[in-house]
């Protein structure tokens, strides 16, 4: 029997080991054991989350395509493939290279599906910038994303950056990538056809990240420093060549299937391709291009060296394929064949070192995890507004909020990213969502990522629903019809029942919200064990969403445009301060209930705005999110990098809402609210549209002037707003 400390080191427990022996009917070889350990890890086999993930809707208003590695939708003759993935732990220890290789991994998932990567987004979360290490992380992560993405020539067009104590010691780096291709050129991750060749293409294999995914992504930080990942140096140049060569190869029509060697490298790609193709596979490790000497079989099988892929090629076409890779100075060698059984057989130095049914590897055990509401939730949810003093000077509050790093302009971040390469970005970062044209088509794409994890901490079900609703709202404000979701579920240790309770409720929130919007979840990623010695991160189910603009010329941006335009607020403002940025920044509290969300009302507001934009009625649309109405108005005034413009919010609006606390009116984060502006002559039509959709609609003021005025409450010149909002992040970095 294999010694206990060996399988434990691989992250397997006693039951799992026994099950493996039972499946094999004998003692597993070290290579086999290593293969099981990675395939059954949370990262690959999802044993602790699979059953819940199965609840996500797989269909919606656009035809969905759910593949092995990534998913997407079809629109007209085009497949739009997209996915989000985490690279949290590597980034925490080596921010630049950790983030860089994260970008590399997610982009590989896109082009292995046969799609040309056309855009990326990044969703980032750090502890407060007052701590030097968090500043180091922010700078390093942004540098890494820029280093990799810019070099590849895939524009990073959007994302988000949040700051919260819970991420000190465990930052989150979630990267999303989007690609497109003609419908019929999609590639699948499968191998079949006895005698077809298995080719290894890309970079060579070293001892990089061995056991990285199973061992590292399955443990908390602080459990033992020696488990630190062997961070890799990203190689965007090789990946760029790999993209070109891969797309050239797929165009030959000689490829049966293809999969990237990401987490768990060759093990995962070979076993899963064979299993998906209901075939067997035999590979010979002596043929694998190695960059280090004396590597053992299990090391080759588990290596996570970057920039490599496995391809099933039609028999007789191997040379043609290998020539393409030669042209790009990359490896392209045959390492095996498809066989007529259903086993994955691995040979090395003349010996069979592994022989396993792919079925057994692919069927990771399924665990029902215990869950329980956290003991402190009731206390957190208690908030007596009477104990919260209303600040006398709302101007000062607004300036403080605008310069809170979570709300402040993220220009410092996205100006380091090439967000224009490929010349498709028609709405640049800095508006609610970025919009891409597709050359030669009338339609376009919008993309965003969103999640307010404080809401999820206070109410995971509603918080996750709000993340979905807000993402959709951001797309609608840009003129797009929300189409499909990818997610990255970042949580603490699932073996702790309170953490799992959060996970379960967030998943249910996403399920129900997506059903309400009639959009599918086409891809995603789970990242557990995000904890530092101080505890778990806030539950963070990041939502990535794409939307379709039937006519990209009708796109819309968030900033006010013309003097004299009428400003209209759609939706209802309630006395809601729970979980708000205001409560945190001004009163130092994270407490209360997350804002209410009525999905029917949310849909109605979105429908009204979408239709208004389609009819060409609006000059701007911006939703109210962190910081509430006052912050959203300030952003409408100053977020256009070329031209700030003031606005005047009239007294009748303030009087009409005088039953609300003024801090709730200005800074409360009631959901389902959108600020729009239009020229005077279109106001009646806009109001009629709102009415037809039963959406509360108030004319609240006028665009123009050199300041933001909210009668009797706020009066600030544009340059002060601008300095607070634009200058804040730069102060720290």
């Amino acid at each position, binding site marked *: 029997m294999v010694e206990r400390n060996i399988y434990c080191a691989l992250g397997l427990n006693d039951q799992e080991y026994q099950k493996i022996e039972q499946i094999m009917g004998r003692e597993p070889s070290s290579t086999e054991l290593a293969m099981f350990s990675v395939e059954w890890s949370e990262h690959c086999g999802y044993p602790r989350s699979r059953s819940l993930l199965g609840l996500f809707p797989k269909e919606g208003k656009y035809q969905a395509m759910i593949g092995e590695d990534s998913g997407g939708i079809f629109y007209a003759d085009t497949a739009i493939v997209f996915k989000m993935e985490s690279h949290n732990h590597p980034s925490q220890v080596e921010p630049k290279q950790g983030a860089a290789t994260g970008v590399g991994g997610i982009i590989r998932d896109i082009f292995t599906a046969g799609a040309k990567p056309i855009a990326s987004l990044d969703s980032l979360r750090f502890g407060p910038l007052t701590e030097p290490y968090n500043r180091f992380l922010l700078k390093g992560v942004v540098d890494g994303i820029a280093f990799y993405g*810019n*070099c590849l*020539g895939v524009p990073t067009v959007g994302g988000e950056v949040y700051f919260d104590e819970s991420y000190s010691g465990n930052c989150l780096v979630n990267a999303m990538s989007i690609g497109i291709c003609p419908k019929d050129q999609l590639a699948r991750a499968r191998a079949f056809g006895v005698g077809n060749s298995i080719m290894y293409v890309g970079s060579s294999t070293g001892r990089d990240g061995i056991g990285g995914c199973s061992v590292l992504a399955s443990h908390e930080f602080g459990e033992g420093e020696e488990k630190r990942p062997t961070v890799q140096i990203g190689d965007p140049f090789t990946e*760029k*060549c790999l993209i070109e060569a891969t797309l050239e190869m797929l165009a030959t029509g000689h490829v049966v299937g293809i999969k990237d060697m990401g987490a768990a490298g060759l093990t995962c790609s070979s076993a899963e391709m064979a299993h998906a193709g209901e075939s067997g596979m035999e590979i010979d490790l002596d043929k694998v291009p190695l960059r280090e000497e004396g590597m053992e079989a299990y090391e080759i099988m588990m290596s996570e060296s970057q920039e490599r892929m496995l391809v099933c090629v039609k028999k007789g076409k191997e040379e043609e394929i290998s020539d393409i890779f030669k042209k790009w100075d990359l490896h392209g060698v045959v390492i095996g064949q498809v066989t007529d059984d259903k086993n994955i057989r691995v040979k090395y130095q003349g010996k069979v070192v592994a022989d396993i049914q792919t079925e057994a590897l692919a069927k990771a055990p399924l665990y029902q995890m215990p869950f329980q509401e956290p003991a402190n939730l009731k206390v957190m949810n208690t908030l007596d507004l009477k104990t919260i003093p209303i600040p006398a000077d709302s101007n000062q509050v607004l300036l403080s909020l605008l310069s809170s790093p979570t709300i402040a302009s993220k220009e410092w971040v996205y100006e380091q*990213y090439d967000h224009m390469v490929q*010349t498709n970005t*028609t709405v640049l970062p800095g508006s609610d969502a970025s919009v891409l044209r597709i050359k030669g088509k009338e339609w376009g794409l919008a993309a965003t990522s969103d999640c307010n994890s404080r809401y999820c901490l206070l109410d995971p079900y509603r918080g996750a629903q709000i993340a979905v609703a807000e993402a959709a709202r951001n797309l609608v404000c840009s003129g797009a019809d929300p189409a499909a979701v990818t997610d990255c579920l970042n949580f603490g240790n699932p073996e702790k029942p309170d953490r799992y309770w959060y996970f379960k409720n967030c998943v249910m929130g996403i399920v129900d919200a997506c059903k309400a919007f009639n959009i599918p979840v086409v891809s995603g990623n789970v990242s557990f064990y995000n904890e530092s010695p101080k505890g778990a991160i806030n539950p963070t189910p990041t939502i990535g969403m794409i939307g379709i603009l039937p006519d990209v010329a009708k796109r819309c941006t968030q900033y006010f445009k013309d003097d004299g335009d009428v400003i209209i607020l759609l939706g209802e403002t309630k006395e809601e301060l729970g979980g708000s940025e205001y409560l945190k920044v001004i009163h130092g509290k994270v407490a209360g209930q997350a804002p209410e969300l009525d999905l029917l009302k949310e849909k109605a507001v979105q429908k009204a705005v979408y239709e208004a934009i389609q009819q060409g009625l609006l000059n701007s649309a911006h939703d109210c999110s962190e910081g509430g109405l006052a912050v959203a108005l300030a952003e409408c005034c100053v977020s256009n990098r070329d031209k700030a413009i003031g606005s005047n919010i009239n007294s009748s609006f303030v009087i009409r809402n005088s039953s609300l606390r003024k801090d709730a009116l200005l800074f409360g984060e009631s959901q389902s609210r959108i600020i729009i502006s239009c020229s005077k002559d279109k106001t009646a039509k806009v109001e009629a549209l709102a009415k037809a959709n039963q959406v509360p609609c108030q004319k609240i003021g006028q665009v123009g002037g050199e300041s933001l005025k909210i009668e009797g409450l706020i009066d600030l010149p544009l340059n002060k707003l601008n300095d607070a909002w634009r200058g804040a992040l730069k102060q720290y970095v």
Partner: protein
Amino acid sequence: MKFGVIVFPGSNCDQDCFHVVKNVVKQPVEYIWHKNTGLDNFDCVVIPGGFSYGDYLRCGAIARFSPIMESVIKFAKAGGLVIGICNGFQVLLEAGLLPGAMLRNKNLHFICKFVELKVEATDTPFSSKYKKGEIVRIPNAHNEGNYYIDDKGLAELKKNNQIVFRYVSNPNGAVDDIAGIVNQKRNVLGMMPHPERCSEAELTSTDGRPIFESIVGWLKQHGRT
């Protein structure tokens, strides 16, 4: 009239330049793989932006030794039009077709952003459709666009009126606010900002288009149709 867009491994604005030549100014254009040689059939060569060889040693340093560069040097010496944009500019510097060198941006960051440029010279094949002194908006996107040249070299550039574009507000530390220069014969242009990113109304600005139109106009005037 035929344009060629050179493709090095790591070039990433090749398709963007190709698109503008083909679909915006509507001229014949072909990609040229860096391992090829010979440019006999071309009238204008575009060296596009990107990260040739990852810029792993120094921007443009490795690409400069690609087989095609020997041909580009010959082509330029014979008076052919060569425009290097961003990484293309860096390659031209490394190849010695233009004087000076690039250092890292003063703030050490990659900067992707629209910047204002002042058109300083219109008597070149690349800038004749602008007005002298005109201010145009064209995006930058680079890490190493901090142009360096010693005092003597700068005096030469000025004396020969070789500075074609200057930054209105210097974003990267470039000597004398230089954003783009030509060689003495005025047939080779290097510039850091990306005109191909602002040649269509969909992309916020069309201020880059006159560069491509100037080239087309010049080639027509010189009998290349």
